[in-house]
């Protein structure tokens, strides 16, 4: 795929946000908040950073992206459809019976989905497996994992963190979509993961801290992360849950509640 400019990426992010609002609205269920926080990360990956081919989703040399926080599937589906994996008109079938757009990503049903996720805390391990296969096969692809602050609660995250560093797994670049919320409340209230940067550093990862809605910062951080040898890279991206829709920003009600038809209309007006 051609590499989008910052301006083009910005425009694409807006289109993706519109899709997220519309498809969760149409399904009357789903997770808009955490989809909107991850939007720039996924847009930057699929429209600039990753080497992939929507016409050949199983191309062995492709870069891989795992959405470990699988409930943000609306963001992933929107990006995949805009990238050409399937027609965006399919997005309206999200969560419907018979649709390939399952509530959470299902690799059996939708080409382009690298990993079935939805049980939190497993994507990093799967990413390590893909990165190890790359090493064995002497290929050059990168594996990206989009994870979350809530997922840092899970023990498996830290098993993976220790093991990846110990085995010097590189070509593995993770994003922490650090929107400061999980399901029942703020991460600070439920199980605070601070100091986040120090945690990942102490597990011997290469760590960068960026604004996760700043596309230029995302591109720069990944360029740096790609140069890291013999260890995995973590990009801690500070984000806002519900980003781009005024009444959803920082309002965790929209973690797992879809906008009503009136709210969809209001949100779309803001996203023009």
């Amino acid at each position, binding site marked *: 795929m051609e590499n989008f400019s910052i301006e083009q990426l910005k425009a694409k992010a807006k289109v993706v946000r519109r899709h997220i609002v519309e498809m969760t609205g149409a399904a009357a269920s*789903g997770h808009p908040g955490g989809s909107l926080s991850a939007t720039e990360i996924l847009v930057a990956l699929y429209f600039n950073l990753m080497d992939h081919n929507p016409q050949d989703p199983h191309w062995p040399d492709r870069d891989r992206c795992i959405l470990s926080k699988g409930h943000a599937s609306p963001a992933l589906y929107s990006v995949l459809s805009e990238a050409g994996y399937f027609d965006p008109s399919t997005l309206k079938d999200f969560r*419907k*019976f018979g649709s390939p757009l399952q*509530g959470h990503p*299902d690799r059996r049903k939708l080409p382009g989905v690298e990993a079935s996720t*939805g049980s939190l805390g497993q994507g990093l391990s799967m990413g390590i497996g893909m990165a190890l296969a790359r090493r064995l096969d002497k290929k050059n692809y990168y594996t990206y994992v989009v994870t979350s602050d809530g997922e840092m*609660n*899970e023990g498996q995250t830290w098993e993976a963190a220790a093991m990846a560093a110990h085995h010097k797994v590189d070509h593995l670049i993770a994003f922490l979509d650090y929107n400061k919320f999980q399901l*029942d409340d703020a991460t600070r209230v439920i199980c605070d993961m601070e100091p986040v940067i120090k945690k990942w550093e102490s597990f011997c990862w290469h760590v960068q801290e960026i604004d996760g809605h700043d596309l230029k910062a995302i591109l720069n951080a990944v360029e740096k992360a790609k140069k890291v040898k013999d260890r995995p890279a973590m990009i801690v991206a500070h984000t806002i849950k519900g980003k781009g829709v005024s009444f959803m920003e920082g309002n965790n009600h929209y973690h797992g509640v879809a906008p009503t038809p009136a709210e969809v209309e209001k949100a779309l007006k803001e996203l023009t």
Partner: protein
Amino acid sequence: MEKKYGKPTRDAYGETIVEIGKANPNVVVLDADLSKSTKSYAFSQVFPERFLNVGIQEANLVGVASGLASCGKIPFISSFASFLVCKGFDQFRMGVAFSELNVKVVGSHGGITVGEDGASQMSIEDVALMTSLPGFVVMVPSDEVETRALVLEAVHYPAPVYIRTGRPKAPIIHKAATPFKIGKGVRMREGKDLTIIANGFLVFEALCAAEKLAEDDGIQASVIDMHTVKPLDAELILEEAKKTGHVVVAEEHQIWGGLGSAVATLLARKHPCKVGFVAIQDTYAESGQPEELLEKYNLTSPYIVKTAKKILGR
């Protein structure tokens, strides 16, 4: 059968646990960042000092509950059944079953009636896994009335208990006055030709099937609400099997290792007879409306009727 919806069984759990908290100061409630979905949230609002939300860490949740139980507390722990049972399994094995500790486990969002969230959130293996743990009681209540009664029973039951609750509203099929006991099935209807044994949402479907069989074919079927899979009510099942000689088991669970397997094992040992199974046929489900999914995965009353006629040779 008229379908009269009540509350989801998870709501009944949430209300009952508050009731229990008032009566028993030893009860503590824990959740893993799903309290608003499992409904343990209600308890957190009334007894914040006896509530703990550990975060998204199901394995740790079980270990912590084990420690609390070893010090005399009665922990009730909840999350989605899929995550709690699968991620906490070794912790259940070591810290609860093998340790013989009194932990009460409530897995919500059981079965495929979870609906739109899709297969990763649906628990179809929980009964198989939890019944495999020595000493564990495993229950799948059918409606709000039964859920309340069984949760109340669980508090005093001297063993670890697993209760599966569901996401959508459950049709009310029981009266408040019905006595419920752990390990004792409830006979909902008596017949001489066939015995349908079901739990959870499938009890309602079984009642509809029995009605249809009587109306259309004059087949008289008993219907048993077998809310407890373990310990299984052998006495009732054998009494029925000896009378009717034909048994259909219906459940919203993977066919391997659920209620059907338990009943078949019992009958093979004590009274071999014709048995039919209505269950999920070794597959994962998908997103959709609960009714659409029950239909697609052959878990509605017409499939019970079909299975019954097949084993009856009709």
